[in-house]
């Protein structure tokens, strides 16, 4: 069974949602919708399914709708239209309690902009997902400490987010998401602010989690090498639409269009550059 399945998701931001949707259904491109209605198209008719236990990478140009799409999975954003199934259940039909239950136990998310709680220390931030769930006591703190160590922030437990560097903040977000031990991890450019050493280490961590604990990981990245290294499947978005989804091999060998090829070429290009 798919861990996550979405069908024909549309998301339009702005006041004239109805009009924009009409234009989209009539086949207008994102830029025209923006110009005519002032509405931003976030996601445009995306359907995909993510299998349980896989690392699914999402790539695409900046602004192509990756973050917006992922936010639908835990319903931080309501789609303009479409269906979302998580573990076979229709997320859009969940009431508040059921939605919260799912968010607590089945999914956790690392945000592109970190989303740390500025009034809590690093350790309280990392504990957050657990305390929200009602867990208490030493176990929680120890668990949090373990993850803080694991992401290399030992010694910073009592600091506040504004005392940390960008990459350190990102790692707090990472530790927070990992600490809840959910079966699905949504990671929105979760390594973008990390240096190559820590980044490699974290990639290893993800692979390990996936292999030993069978976690489903949705991973947004701009680094094709990273996607190739850890992704079992890769989806490529463009202007809110899904252009291609497949294994790294498929993508590399049979890019469906020029856009995809250029994504892949870039890598070859860099690797081939002499120094």
């Amino acid at each position: 069974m798919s861990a996550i399945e979405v069908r024909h998701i549309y998301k339009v931001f702005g006041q004239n949602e109805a009009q924009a949707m009409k234009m989209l259904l009539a086949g207008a491109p994102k830029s025209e919708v923006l110009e005519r209605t002032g509405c931003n198209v976030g996601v445009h008719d995306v359907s995909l399914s993510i299998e349980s236990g896989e690392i699914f990478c999402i790539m695409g140009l900046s602004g192509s709708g990756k973050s917006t799409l992922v936010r639908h999975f835990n319903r931080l954003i309501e789609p303009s239209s479409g269906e979302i199934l998580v573990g076979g259940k229709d997320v859009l039909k969940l009431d508040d309690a059921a939605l919260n239950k799912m968010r607590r136990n089945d999914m956790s998310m690392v945000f592109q902009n970190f989303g740390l709680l500025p009034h809590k220390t690093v350790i309280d931030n990392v504990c957050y997902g657990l305390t929200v769930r009602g867990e208490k006591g030493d176990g929680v703190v120890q668990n949090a400490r373990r993850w803080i160590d694991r992401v290399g922030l030992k010694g910073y437990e009592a600091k506040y987010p504004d005392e940390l560097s960008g990459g350190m903040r990102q790692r707090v977000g990472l530790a927070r998401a990992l600490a809840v031990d959910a079966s699905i991890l949504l990671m929105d450019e979760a390594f973008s602010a990390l240096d190559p050493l820590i980044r490699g280490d974290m990639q290893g961590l993800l692979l390990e989690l996936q292999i030993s604990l069978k976690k489903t990981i949705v991973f947004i990245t701009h680094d094709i090498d990273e996607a190739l290294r850890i992704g079992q499947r890769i989806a490529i978005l463009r202007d809110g639409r899904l252009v291609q989804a497949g294994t790294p091999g498929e993508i590399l060998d049979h890019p469906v269009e020029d856009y995809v090829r250029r994504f892949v070429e870039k890598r070859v290009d860099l690797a081939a550059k002499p120094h």
Partner: protein
Amino acid sequence: MNGIFLDLSVADEVNSAVMGFVQAHGEFFLAIAHFLLTWMLVPLERALLATPAWVALPAIALLAWHATRRIGVVVVLTVGLYLIGSFGLWDKLMQTVALMIVATLLTLAIGLPLGIWMSGSERLRNVLQPVLDVMQTLPTFVYLVPVLMLFGLGKVPALLATVVYALPPLVRLTDLGIRQVDASVVEAAQSFGTTRMQRLFSVQLPLARPSIMAGMNQAVMMALAMVVIASMIGARGLGEDVLAGINNMDMGRGLQGGLAIVILAVVIDRITQAYGVGKRQRELGAKKS
């Protein structure tokens, strides 16, 4: 007067309506007043009056120390209170304090939830906004005379007037503070399955704290600005001296009473604000001084 206006006047109708209402429902309201008095105001006042000053003063100083951790502040506050005692106003101070404590607690108990509720509903805000305007600008005495006829002279209408006047800034600033909380932080909290209550208590209220504390401060100020009005309808306390001063142009006496009120305001404000400051701010502050 001016050509375009109709000639309306509701004065007479209002007058007889009020009188009629008083005759019809007076008993009921008196019972409420009686309840508030015997269970809250009078016992608290008794207790405060029974506490000797040499117990109360150090107790307040300790509280101030616990709240602020700054010896300078503690000294100033204690000297201020001692001064009130030396003006011969200690007993009246206690009477006022009793009223203020009950009024502030009531204001908090009503204002915070209302502000929180308002922050979540555009519609409620549109409805409440003018009501709050009315509460702040309708001259106290306009509604106080009917209230007084219902509840009788004394502490109860004073309490009501104080709460009515002190409520709006707290509600408004709570609402403002919560609405200003960064949406991306709330979103992140949501993603962990935060319930409405958890969101409120672990994200929104802490982050709205500066605004809410400003609202608290204004509520306390408003409440203390009502002390004189309270005395105008028979509540005992510091206001009496001010009134007496006003009524015979005894500026000195009025000033003493007024100063006592100000000192009380500063004491309450400093202590509540200190408790309201976040853990982190406090650590920073403590290290600085």
